[in-house]
C-alpha cells in the first residue's frame, strides 16, 4: 500500500508565513489561557489528599457531600464521580502528618454507614513541602532536558538547527499546556512525564526532518534553501505521517481503554502527537530559514573542513614517507 508517492516537492515554504501566523496565534492563546485561567494544579504539586471510594451500587454522592460538609476539616472538599457512577473521588487541600490515623481512616469512619459502601481504594496524600520540592524538581528536569538536547543537536548539526528544534519544542509544549488548561486536566507528576515525553517525541520528529535537510544541503545542486526544505520535508512526509498515525492510534487506545487513572496522561500525549507532527512539518523548518541559515556558507564550511582533513592526511602521508 502506498499513501504518499513522491512526485514533486510541495511548496511549503511559500506558505510558511501563514503557518507561522497560525502557530503564533496558538502559542499566544495558550499562554493567555495559562496565565488567566491557570493550571488545575493537583496534589502532587500543591499538596493535599485524594481519596477514591468504591460503592457496590451507584454512589450516594449528595449524601457524601453532606456528611463531609459537616466536618470542619473537609469544608471545600471536592467530590466527583470517577470513571463509573459506582466510584467517587474526594479531593481536599488538607493533608495530615499523623502516621497512625490519617485522613483516609477518618473518611472511612465517616462514610462506612453510607448505602452500598464497599471500600476505600486509594488514598494519596502529599504534604505541602514535598509538593513544592516536586514542582522544583519537575521544572529542573524540563530545563535540563532542553539544555542537553541543545548541546547534542548543535554538536550533530549546527547551532541554528538546535535553536529551531528547541523553538519547535517550546511551541509544542506550550500548546499542549494550553490544552491542559482549556480542558481542566489536573496537573500531577504524570502530566509532567507526559510533557517530557512530548518533548522527546516532537524532537524525534523534527530531527528526522532535519536529518533529511542536512542530507539535501549536501546532495541537492540548487542552493535555494527554501527549495531544499520543500523537497526534504516532502520526502519525509510519508514517514512523518505514518509514524504519527501509528503512535496516535497506540496513544488513542491508551486514552480510550487505559483506565481513568492515566486518562490525563494519555490526553496530554494525544495532543502532543498532533502538535508535534504539525510543528515538525510546518514550524521547525521555516524557523531554520528565518534564522538566516545559508546553504552556500554551510557548504563553504563543509568544504573547508574537508580540505583541512585532506591537508592533514597529506601531511600525515608525507610524514610517514619521511619527506617532512
Amino acid at each position: 500500500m502506498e499513501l504518499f508517492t513522491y512526485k514533486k516537492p510541495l511548496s511549503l515554504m511559500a506558505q510558511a508565513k501563514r503557518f507561522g501566523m497560525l502557530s503564533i496565534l496558538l502559542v499566544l492563546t495558550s499562554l493567555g489561557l495559562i496565565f488567566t485561567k491557570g493550571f488545575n494544579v493537583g496534589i502532587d504539586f500543591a499538596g493535599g489528599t485524594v481519596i477514591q471510594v468504591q460503592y457496590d451500587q451507584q454512589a450516594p454522592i449528595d449524601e457524601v457531600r453532606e456528611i463531609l460538609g459537616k466536618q470542619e476539616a473537609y469544608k471545600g472538599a471536592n467530590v466527583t464521580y470517577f470513571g463509573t457512577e459506582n466510584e467517587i473521588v474526594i479531593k481536599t487541600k488538607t493533608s495530615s502528618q499523623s502516621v497512625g490515623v490519617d485522613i483516609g481512616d477518618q473518611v472511612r469512619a465517616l462514610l462506612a454507614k453510607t448505602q452500598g459502601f464497599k471500600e476505600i481504594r486509594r488514598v494519596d496524600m502529599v504534604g505541602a513541602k514535598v509538593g513544592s520540592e516536586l514542582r522544583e524538581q519537575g521544572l529542573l528536569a524540563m530545563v535540563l532536558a532542553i539544555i542537553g538536547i541543545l548541546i547534542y543537536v548543535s554538536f550533530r548539526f549546527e547551532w541554528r538547527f538546535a535553536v529551531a528544534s528547541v523553538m519547535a519544542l517550546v511551541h509544542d509544549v506550550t500548546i499542549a499546556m494550553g490544552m491542559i488548561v482549556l480542558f481542566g486536566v489536573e496537573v500531577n507528576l504524570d502530566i509532567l512525564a507526559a510533557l517530557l515525553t512530548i518533548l522527546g517525541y516532537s524532537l524525534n520528529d523534527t530531527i528526522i526532518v532535519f536529518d533529511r535537510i542536512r542530507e539535501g544541503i549536501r546532495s541537492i545542486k540548487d542552493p535555494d534553501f527554501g527549495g531544499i526544505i520543500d523537497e526534504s520535508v516532502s520526502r519525509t512526509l510519508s514517514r512523518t505521517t505514518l509514524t504519527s498515525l501509528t503512535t496516535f492510534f497506540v496513544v488513542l487506545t491508551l486514552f480510550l481503554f487505559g483506565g481513568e487513572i492515566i486518562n490525563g496522561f494519555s490526553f496530554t500525549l494525544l495532543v502532543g502527537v498532533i502538535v508535534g507532527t504539525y510543528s515538525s512539518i510546518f514550524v521547525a523548518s521555516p524557523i531554520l530559514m528565518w534564522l538566516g541559515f545559508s546553504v552556500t556558507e554551510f557548504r563553504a564550511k563543509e568544504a573547508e573542513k574537508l580540505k583541512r582533513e585532506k591537508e592533514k592526511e597529506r601531511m600525515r602521508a608525507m610524514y610517514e614517507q619521511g619527506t617532512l
Partner: protein
Amino acid sequence: MLNYRVIIFACALIFGVVFSIPSLIQSESGKKITLGLDLQGGLHMLLGVRNEVAIASKLKSIAASIKYLFDEEEIIYDALSLDEDTAEITFEILDNEDLTRVNALLKEELEGVTFSQTALKYALQMTEGEIERTKKDAIDQAVDTIRGRLNEFGLAEPTVAKQGQEKILVEVPGIKTQEDEQRVRELIARAAHLQLMAVDEERIARVNTMSAAEAKSYGDVILPDVNTAEKYLLKAIPVLDGSMLTDAKVGFDENSQPVINFTLNRQGAKIFGDFTAISVGKRMAVVLDNQVYSAPNIRERIGGGRVQISGQFTMEEAHDLAIALRSGSLLAPVYVMEKRSVGPSLGADSIKASSLALMFGFVLVVIFMVLYYGMAGVIANVALIGNLFLILAIMSLFGATLTLPGMAGIVLTVGMAVDANVIINERIREVLAQGKSIAKSIEDGYNNAFTAIWDANVTTLIAATVLYAYGTGPIKGFALTMSIGIMASMLTAIVGTHGIYQWILPKMDKNRLGYWFGIKGSK
C-alpha cells in the same frame, strides 16, 4: 544466507524469551519483574523525622547521667533541670570544694557537651557536632527500627530506606484492607518509648490543680492514665527506659487478659533492684509513650528485672506493642510527608485496563504494518515482538519495578519502535523507485536511514535519562521502560531486520515488489 546480524538478533530473541518467562508466568524462582505498588496494591510513605525530639531526649539522658554520676560520687547538687526550649541543662552545687571534681567529671564522663559555670551554677549544652550526630542517629535508628518492626509483623518484602538526608521511604506491598493498613501505620508510628518513673508522693495530692509549669519547677511532669481520666505527678527524669529492655512477650494475667512481660538487661535489672529497694511503700509508674499504664505500689525490692505492662489490651494491640517494644523505641517521632496507598482490587483493575490497551495498540500497529508494507511489515513486526521480549527480559534481570506509567511507557515504545522500521522501509522504497536492485536498495536504505534513527533515538534518550534522574516513584518507572525500549529497539529494528533481509535476500523477487515491500513493481 545466514549472517552475523541475524545471529545476533536470534540470540537477543532467545535471551529475551528465556529471561522474560519467569515474569510472564510469575514463577516463584528466577529473577522477575516486581509489580509496583500502584499495580499490586500497597502502602507507600515518605516519612520525616522530628529531630527536635531526638535532641530533647538526648538531653534528658545526659541529665540522667549527671544525676547518676553525682549520686555515685556523692556530690551534693540541687535544682537539676532541663529546659527543652533553650536545649539547656542547669544545676547548682552546694559545696565550694566540689567545684574541681565536678568540672573534671563533666569533662571526662560526658561526651559532646560544653558547659559554663558562674559561681556554683552550671549551664550545659550539646555541641554543634553532637546535635548533627544526634539528628543523623535519629533517622538511621528510625530506619532500622521501622524495618525491624515491619519484618517481624510478617508482611512480604517491605522496603524501608533512607532517602536523601532526612527522609525515610517506606513501601509495604500486599496489604489487603484499609484496616490492616492502618494497623501497619500505627505499628510504624508507635514511639514505643517505655519509661519507669517514680511517683512524686510528696506533691501528688495537688496534681489536679497543678499547672505544667509548676510541675516543671519541681523537676516533675504530669502524665495522664491510659484508660481513665486520672493524672499522675512523676519525676521527670525516669528511673530507667526501654533501651535497657532485652525482650518483650505477650502473656496473660490472672484474669486471662493479654499483658506484655518484658525483661531488663543486667544494668537495668540492677538499677531497678536498687530503686525498688529504697522506694518501698512508694509507687512506680510504667509509662509508655507518655501515658501511664499502671502505677503499682512497691512492696519490696524487686530483683531479676522482670516487669509487666497491663492495660486492657486486645490481643492484636498486645501483639503489635510487643513487636514495637522488642525492636526498640523511635528516638524521634516520624510524620508523613507523602503517602500513597492503593487497594489490591484497584491495582488489578489498572493491570487489566493497561494490558488491554497495550494489546489493542500492539495488534493495531501489527495489522497496519502488514497492510502497508507487505512482507517488509511482517519483518518489522518480528522486530517489534523481539523488542517487547527484550524489554521484559532486561527489566526482569534488573529486578525492575513495573508501574502503571511504566506500562504506558511500554505502550509508547511500541509506537516509537516501529518508527525506525517505517523510516528504513520508506528509504528502501525510495531507492527501489529509482530502479535499483533489491540488494542495493536494502543496503542504501539502511545506510540512508541510520543517521536519522540514531540522532532521533539519542535525543529521546537524553530526555528519558533526565526524567529518570529527576523523576520520583512511578515516573522513574516510565523513564526506565522507555530508555530500555529505545535501546532494545536499536538492536531489534536496525540490526535485527537488516539481518533478516540479508538472510532471505535470495528468495526476494523483483517482480513481486507488491508482496515484499507493498509497492507496485517498477520497470
